[in-house]
């Protein structure tokens, strides 16, 4: 981000490398700016001014806690909900009218759907990763053995089976909400990047950036903040796991072609391999099941993946028909 012309104070302030130099943060920027200042002595005064402003004052910011904010929000919510019920009563006589209006609307929309709706389906087989750009500019990386579908006229509402990483385009986030629907829940998106993984038992959502709401099949909902990981099962009708993940890369590395394992039992690691490559896993002994594995393996090449696992832990893996048979070396 190095500009060529610096004629006024704003030119400096808007340059991130300048801020880095002022804060002595980045060696390259420091070197650059020291050289630049030595060669532009006539700008010395401007540089000093801009540096003063960039550094400014630092405060111990004394903002209210998030608990307090939640409390105040609950108060607020109760107040407006009470107000709503009052106004509903007043408007009761409008009901028949609104029913007629919604029927008319339904008919119009139904017609629209019949004429316009083409369903688009993206599918991946085992060991395949697909990058998809949706019509609205959002990017989706679809993991192996997964499918993503949507209607052409409603591309901001997508159905997911399997796993995908979403980067919802913020530029177009102004038009309509973005929805991801799975068997267990729907994710209501407010411009953001996140990972959704759904299988037979559950759907797990990891939010990397931005803000989303989960609407569960049982009617409950939950707001997520960055770093949150929540898995939910519609069969059990409950949240299975809700935690904070500081190391985001563990959740999202698959989209760049690697599966990362960090202190995982081989049993758990192999179940991820099973999901990725579609091979059934057979353990010959208990000891190899419980071996702990840490490391990275590719998710689009099974042979290299097997070799990597064999190298990092003491096991032998034999590929036979649709199975991976694992035994102690």
């Amino acid at each position, binding site marked *: 981000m190095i500009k060529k012309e610096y004629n006024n104070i704003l030119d400096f302030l808007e340059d991130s490398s300048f801020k880095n130099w002022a804060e002595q943060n980045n060696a390259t920027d420091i070197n650059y700016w020291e050289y630049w200042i030595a060669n532009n002595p006539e700008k010395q005064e401007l540089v000093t001014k801009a540096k003063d402003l960039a550094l*400014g004052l630092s*405060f111990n910011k004394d*903002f209210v806690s998030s608990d307090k904010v939640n409390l105040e*929000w609950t108060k607020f919510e109760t107040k407006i909900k009470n107000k709503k019920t009052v106004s509903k009563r007043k408007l009761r006589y409008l009901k028949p009218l609104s029913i007629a209006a919604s029927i008319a609307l339904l008919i119009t929309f139904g017609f629209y759907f019949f004429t316009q709706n083409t369903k688009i389906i993206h599918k991946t087989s085992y060991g395949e990763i697909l990058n998809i750009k949706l019509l609205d500019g959002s990017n989706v990386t679809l993991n192996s053995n997964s499918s993503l579908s949507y209607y052409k006229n409603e591309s901001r509402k997508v159905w997911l089976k399997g796993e995908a990483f979403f980067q919802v385009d913020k530029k177009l986030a102004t038009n309509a909400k973005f929805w991801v629907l799975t068997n267990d829940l729907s994710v209501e998106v407010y*411009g953001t990047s996140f990972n959704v993984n759904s299988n037979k038992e559950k759907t797990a959502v990891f939010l990397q950036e931005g803000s989303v*709401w989960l609407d569960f099949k049982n009617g409950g909902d939950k*707001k997520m903040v960055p770093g949150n990981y929540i898995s939910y099962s519609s069969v059990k009708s409950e949240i299975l796991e809700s935690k904070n993940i500081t190391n985001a890369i563990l959740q999202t590395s698959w989209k760049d072609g690697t599966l990362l394992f960090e202190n995982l039992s081989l049993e758990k690691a192999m179940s991820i391999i099973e999901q990725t490559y579609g091979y059934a896993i057979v353990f010959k002994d208990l000891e190899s099941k419980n071996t702990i594995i840490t490391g990275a393996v590719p998710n689009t090449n099974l042979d290299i993946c097997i070799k990597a696992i064999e190298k990092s832990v003491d096991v032998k893996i034999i590929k036979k028909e649709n199975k991976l048979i694992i035994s102690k070396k």
Partner: protein
Amino acid sequence: MNKLTDKFIWKSLKDGDLKAFSVLFETYYPLLHNYGLKISKNIAVTEDSLQDFFIYIYEKRENLSDLETIAPYLFTSYRRFLLNIMKKNAKLKYVDFSEETITDIEFTKEELMTNQEAESFRNKNLSKLLNKLPARQKEAVYLKYYTGLKAREIAEIMNINYQSVVNTLHKAIKNLKEEVSILKLFK
């Protein structure tokens, strides 16, 4: 908060989306709470007025105009809202009310780090010196370095242009620097 996200949240809010409203609430409540305290210097007044203010925004959401950035709108309308309440309170108590003196922001000793990034500001009496600055300069300093707003947003809140924000900030920093160095002479 991202400007484009701002625009989206504002639009959802206008459509009556309560979830969008909670995002807005969580983002701006702490900032406005602090701002309100700085102006009213009274916790009860601040918190009551904030509840009423958010309800006011929610109820008239359909009539709100489209916004690219939310912060300037919320800060200015909350300030107006709060001052009206304070004016009413003052009338009840027959206290003389002048906006100039009452909107004067004050910083506490605890809020100012003694270990400042800029070496020339490392001074125990920094809060005193800062509080001595003209009200406009203090407000600019507060909005920029405490609340973390962008210069363009501050320009809207203070109703001056972008360049004037930078000038005002610079005057504030320069004044502070001089005060600190004078103080050092007498050590």
